[in-house]
């Protein structure tokens, strides 16, 4: 209680740190990563790789954030991505259809295949939303069931085999580079800007925050809670299909089992990015930072030749540590 000057300054610095805790962690990580990798982490080509790898999960995170803002969760989003990728990959290629044993997908041609995949995703999203809004099943259960069903459909669609020979369009898109960065990275960044803008600057976004913050007050303020919620789930599933497209473009191969790690990485990224599981709080910017943080971490461990299995263990520990640190800085 002596000199107010330095103390006030200290408090300012502290509150500033609290406000930007995630960014501090992020830059801290970049410095540490750059140092212990001997600069290899910060090489432009490596940064491009991180962005390329992030594009799929990143798009899924965008969708997940929207649903989490209305205090929901979409456990089916990775399954949507995989099923969309399977449908696009198989139905777009005659060769693939001939390889399928007992699958039900016919050959449709490139654009009809893409259209079918996106239409299917929209349908899934609407059904998810209606289960939550009309049947009032907890989102956790409804989307878990949807995920199971979609994985079943994905397996049936190709008779259980992998999709190895999608139309040329997909790998061409995936590896086309502009200014050294592959196209999927631009698509991801563009979508992040659009969704970020939609949340911060449109009536839809404001309504999402209102519903997540207090659904009853939102309803009493005349916000069409059910419609907006269903829309959130629908857009989420739609982004899932986009992620499926990117997945196919990036890897050229997809099996029904490809999505096993995607879902949990998506949720972890959003939560590390400060999106609240109870709804109403979170921003796209921070969620993207969270995604990049986790992707960067995994990349760093690759550079450091940590075995992929230990990586999973280490990421688990670091996710917990990051959330605890974030929560501590965020207090009060």
């Amino acid at each position, binding site marked *: 209680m002596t000199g107010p000057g330095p103390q006030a300054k200290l408090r300012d610095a502290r509150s500033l740190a609290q406000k930007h805790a995630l960014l501090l962690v992020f830059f801290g990580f970049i410095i540490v990563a750059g140092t212990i990798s001997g600069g290899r982490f910060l090489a432009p080509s490596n940064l491009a790789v991180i962005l390329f790898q992030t594009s799929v999960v990143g798009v899924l995170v965008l969708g997940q954030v929207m649903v989490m803002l209305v205090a929901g969760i979409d456990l089916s989003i990775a399954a949507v991505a995989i099923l969309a990728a399977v449908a696009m990959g198989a139905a777009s290629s005659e060769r693939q259809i001939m390889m399928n044993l007992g699958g039900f997908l016919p050959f449709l041609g490139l654009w009809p295949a893409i259209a079918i995949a996106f239409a299917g995703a929209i349908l899934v999203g609407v059904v998810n939303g209606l289960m939550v809004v009309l049947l009032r099943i907890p989102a956790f259960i409804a989307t878990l069931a949807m995920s199971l069903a979609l994985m079943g459909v994905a397996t049936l669609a190709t008779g259980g085999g992998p999709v190895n020979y999608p139309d040329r369009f997909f790998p061409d898109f995936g590896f086309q580079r502009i200014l050294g960065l592959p196209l999927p990275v631009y698509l991801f960044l563009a979508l992040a800007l659009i969704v970020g803008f939609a949340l911060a600057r*449109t009536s839809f976004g404001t*309504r999402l*925050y209102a519903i997540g913050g207090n659904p009853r007050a939102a*309803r*009493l303020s*005349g916000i069409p809670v059910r419609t907006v919620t269903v829309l959130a789930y629908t857009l989420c599933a739609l982004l899932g299909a986009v992620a499926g497209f990117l997945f196919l473009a990036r890897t050229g191969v997809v099996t029904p089992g490809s999505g096993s790690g995607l879902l949990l990485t998506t949720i972890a990224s959003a939560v590390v990015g400060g999106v609240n599981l109870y709804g109403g709080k979170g921003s796209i910017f921070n969620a993207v930072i969270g995604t990049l943080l986790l992707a960067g971490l995994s990349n760093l461990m690759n550079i450091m030749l940590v075995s992929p299995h230990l990586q999973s263990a280490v990421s688990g520990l670091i996710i917990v540590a990051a959330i605890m640190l974030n929560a501590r800085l965020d207090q009060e």
Partner: protein
Amino acid sequence: MANTSPPPLLAMRGIVKTFPGVQALRGVDFDLRSGEIHCLVGENGAGKSTLMRVLAGAQKPDAGEIVLNGKSFTALSPALGHTLGIGMIYQEADLVSGLSILDNIFLGHEDVVAGMLLKKRQMREELKVLFAQLNLQFHPDTIVRYLAPAQRQQVQIAKALSRQYRILVLDEPTAALTDNEIGYLFELLKVLRAHGIGMVYVSHRLSEVLAIADRVTVLRDGGHVSTRPIAEVTREGLIADMVGSAVDADARAKSTRTDEIVLAVRDLAVEGQFDRISFDLHRGEILGIGGLVGAGRSEVLECLFGLTRPDAGSITLGGKAVQLRGPGDAIALGLGLVPEERRESGLVLVRSVAENIAFPVLSKLSRAGVLSRRRLNALAADLVQRLSIRTPSLGQLVRTLSGGNQQKVVMGKWLAAGTRILLLDEPTRGIDINAKFEIYQLIHELASKGMSVIMVSSDMPELLALSDRILVMAEGLPVTILDGATADQVEIMRHAVTHPSAGVGA
């Protein structure tokens, strides 16, 4: 500080608690004797809840001491308070609704053998004795979820007695009770008093304080104002202590009612809630709805706002019969509801003042879905000024505002939406006295500008001071419509306790 009385059960001395920017308690003294009901009153923000949170161990005081059972503490914790015999009866965090009455009453101090096995039979026997003492009739295995609020409170009180708490804190215990139930509660409290339990009774309702207190302590702005035995307490004296100067609570303003009928309700009914409600609402009129809690008053408002569908009857707005499918329809037709629980239903606490005001009109502030921040802020700034909402900025989270200012934000929302018929449900509940009068003034001002208001209130002076006419309801049915200028409290109460089902046809 009487020398003859036994040492107090509890003495809090010089309690200081500072939050960032606010000094919530500035050296407060408070004591409690065995077998007394000590009422704690004061406006919102006077420090009552903070003081009780210190006693509950939920807050650590910055300075001061708490003496319990002759031992001195600088701070308590919930577990410590529990072992020292302090019981808290809160409205919200009360009982575990999924557990039975038996389990709830013994939760945390079960009879066990070998440190873990429950002795159910013994607990049942104890419960029987306990209920007999309090003249309560419950089946011990009833799940608490199935109990009405008043019954839950009775279970809580039984719980307190069974734990042999020596100190009991009751925070606004009558908020959800009907008058009969309040009477019953007071009987229970007297039984506890006879058992030598000391009770701190926190309430806004001065008439209850006057009816039940042995001593009354008034806090103001975090400081101790007075502690008096009940014999020396008067209503006016309490109000004067609370606000610092006497306030005329009974100022009736001029009626601004016109002849134009904006809303006509005929034989409106929702099954299980209310029946045969009919009235006309005029432009510029304030129509009060009086009656006991549970008479179906709030339910009428909810139905008018489209939250429930009527099973019978008609609603005519501006001469046209309407069917409301939801709040959206009601808002479009110029209705706005200020709900009773403003924090739970009226506001999104984690969003800004500006956004909360703009929620009903987001589409009007957007072009092609893109929200204009400039127009949103202009609208909010205008309303913040018109309603003199005290907030550091438009971006301030609503959570941090005081109750009165929060209520103004809810009302501002409807002004922004161009509401012509305002439905108010207990508009000043839990709001401090000064803010209360600001809100009264605001309601009058709105009515004088042509707004029509329907106001449900349990605060009878408020009902009388504001209403042009008062519809009194009992047990879901209308009893009578009184003229606000000539009615008095006794008359309202007489109608509110009738049994209209016995023969009054509206």
